């Protein structure tokens, strides 16, 4: 399941929680871990100058500098690195999301692990030029599950045993389900299939009584059965539930209640088309608030 982990990091505090999860996973599942760092964004036209993403300074790139940064990363993660011997550190330049996607495509990791609040990276102007954060753009394009940790993953202790799959019945959710099911089967986890019925759209409309909401809930349960459970064969340890409310709130609440150590859900691209929207999809809202890792999936996993 997790033989190869790509840990994309800014090598700063912002990625510390992610680092813990990434290295714990590597140890637990005996995985190879690629520590990947984009040290700078090219700037100044065609010149050799890059903006160092950590310091914000302009530096002229050469091998020395590259090695220096590599060394810095190694000492930053010194502690964690000692627990594993199967790792590699790669540094490169470019636009972070692009380079993460590039190396993912070449290395075909089983999962990409990122810090949640790395934010839009880069210098001031790069921030402005980029629509959305590095995570948004990676999540949107990747054919890989992307695991993000924003808050200290309190309930995560190295392995997964209790997984929430939150669906919005989209195509992307189907991809997410495929991955989630594979994961729970291989890792012997409890599986919680969950849908949050969005009632924000009912608010202006008093025609909708509790009855209609109940109808919809029944509907959703039926859908879960039809779309997912029917594909689970004789897999037993699962439960399903549909709550109404504001989706991201309900998902987080549900995960907490079930003491989930992992949430898997679709990253729905269309909602983040608007460059002005700093708060993106439901997935991003969940990431901001969940106290366990969140894996977001937007496309069929492992294709190509």
């Amino acid at each position, binding site marked *: 399941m997790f033989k190869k982990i790509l840990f994309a990091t800014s090598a700063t505090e912002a990625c510390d929680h992610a680092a813990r999860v990434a290295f714990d996973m590597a140890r637990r599942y005996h995985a190879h871990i690629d520590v990947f760092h984009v040290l700078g964004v090219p700037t100044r036209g*065609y010149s050799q100058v890059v903006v160092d993403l950590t310091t914000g300074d302009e530096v002229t790139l050469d091998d020395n500098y590259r090695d220096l940064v590599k060394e810095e990363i190694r000492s930053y993660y010194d502690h964690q690195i000692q627990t594993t011997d199967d790792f590699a550190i790669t540094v490169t330049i470019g636009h972070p999301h692009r380079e993460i996607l590039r190396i993912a495509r070449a290395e075909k990791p089983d999962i990409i692990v990122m810090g949640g609040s790395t934010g839009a990276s880069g210098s001031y102007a790069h921030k402005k030029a980029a629509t959305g954060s590095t995570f948004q753009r990676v999540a949107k394009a990747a*054919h890989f599950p992307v695991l993000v940790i924003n808050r200290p993953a309190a309930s995560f202790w190295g392995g997964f045993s209790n997984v929430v799959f939150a669906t919005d019945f989209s195509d992307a959710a189907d991809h997410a389900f495929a991955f989630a099911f594979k994961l729970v089967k291989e890792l012997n986890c409890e599986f919680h299939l969950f849908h949050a019925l969005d009632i924000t759209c009912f608010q202006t409309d008093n025609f909708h009584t509790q009855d209609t909401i109940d109808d919809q809930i029944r509907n959703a349960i039926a859908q879960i059965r039809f779309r997912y459970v029917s594909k689970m064969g004789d897999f037993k340890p699962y439960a399903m539930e549909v709550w109404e409310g504001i989706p991201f709130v309900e998902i987080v609440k549900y995960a907490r209640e079930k003491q989930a150590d992992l949430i898997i859900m679709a990253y729905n691209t269309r909602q983040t088309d608007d460059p002005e929207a700093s708060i993106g999809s439901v997935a991003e809202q969940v990431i901001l608030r969940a106290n366990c890792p969140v894996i977001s999936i937007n496309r069929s996993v492992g294709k190509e």
Partner: protein
Amino acid sequence: MPEGTLCNRQPIQTDEALKTLLSDTGGRQYYQEMQSLPVDTPLLWETIQKTCRSRIRTWLSMCARCGMCADSCFLYRINDRDPKQVPAYKIQSTLGEILRRKGRVDNAFMQMAMETAWAKCTCCNRCGLYCPHGIDMGVMFGYLRGLLYQQGFVPWELKIGAGMHRVYHAQMDVTDADFTETFAWMVEENEEDYPGLAVPVDKVGADIMYTVNAREVKHYPEDLAEAAILFHLAGENWTVPSRGWEQTSLAMFAGDWEACKIQVESVYDAMERLKPKRMVGTECGHAHRATVVEGPYWAGRKDGLPPVESIHYVEWLAEALRTGKLKINPEKRIKEPVTLQDSCNYVRNHGLKEITREIMSYIVEPGYFIDMSPNREHNYCCGGGGGFNGIGLYRKQRNKALITKRDQILSTGAKLVIAPCHNCWDAIRDLEEEYRIGIRWSFLKPLILKMVEIPEHLKPEE
């Protein structure tokens, strides 16, 4: 005095030499060596005798010294009207002086000339429009750059850039395989949203052969994806060549005419090989200038035209919008004050002034498009043209040069600047970084993609 190991008269010919020069961080040793680089005066004079003909000689000798060109040059205006920035002065004190001294100039002179040619002129050719005698200093600075390059007096980044073209046939170390591979990657990334999306490589007889800027391949592959998607949505029969896909030419900025020829011939070869009806180039100004406007002459094409009709991206886009190949959702048109950067390289120097405005009329809600002043062929350079953007040695001067554009943008009041040119785009980004005036900037492709209607048969199945 011998030539340096890094700074010398030999162009970069091999990957190894390229790497060696690149590893000299910031060109420290390179510029050190330049201090003692001897001038090969016989070669200089001989070259002038062969290549400096009546046009330039007459320009230099007939200049009325009237100073009417002074105000036309944005670098003169922005540098507190320093008389030493008057175009006529700049060219007379360099190229003019070399001719008067029959090439007998020394190292210090050449270094001064280098700074003048690359830090005091962006070859925007605006002054040529304001001289009563029709003297185009931009053209002469281009010529001067050639002489300086031949003598080894060229900024470090441009020596590398020209070398890249010689070694990779591209402005960066992007190989032909990287190019097609990156396109394939972009198809993978987007084919779920755009079923049927494909990038035909080396298709013979297509309607359009698309050429790009290597930087897109290396750092902004989204741009390739956007181009592919828009061609796909427009239903174009298009292709990219597996060789000869690079449209830009840092060699042109460097004055390395031989590399210019090598570069542009690689594109023309692709045209001959694939026999497309037309070539469309990406949103780049100097690339268009190099491949479509100047290129035919480097390649020795007597009719001054590329082997097949070659157009800029804005021409294709305007046509696609005009003929309805691409349809804009009127709801999604830009509804905020927006302005447009006229790139000297295809507006002043290739007449594409109305076509970009036609595009604006399709994509901007009436009343929201605000022109800069001056505009069209009288626009000012963005401040980063002619290689200025990338030269570390002249960073300070370049940042100052950006002020012209900054103030032009500020006085439009627009917060969004459309810059269909890589160099201009870079310069505008840098000016935001330097001066923080709170603007956004964009190429056309991403904007169009946000507002284009997707034909029913091309939509992904729900």
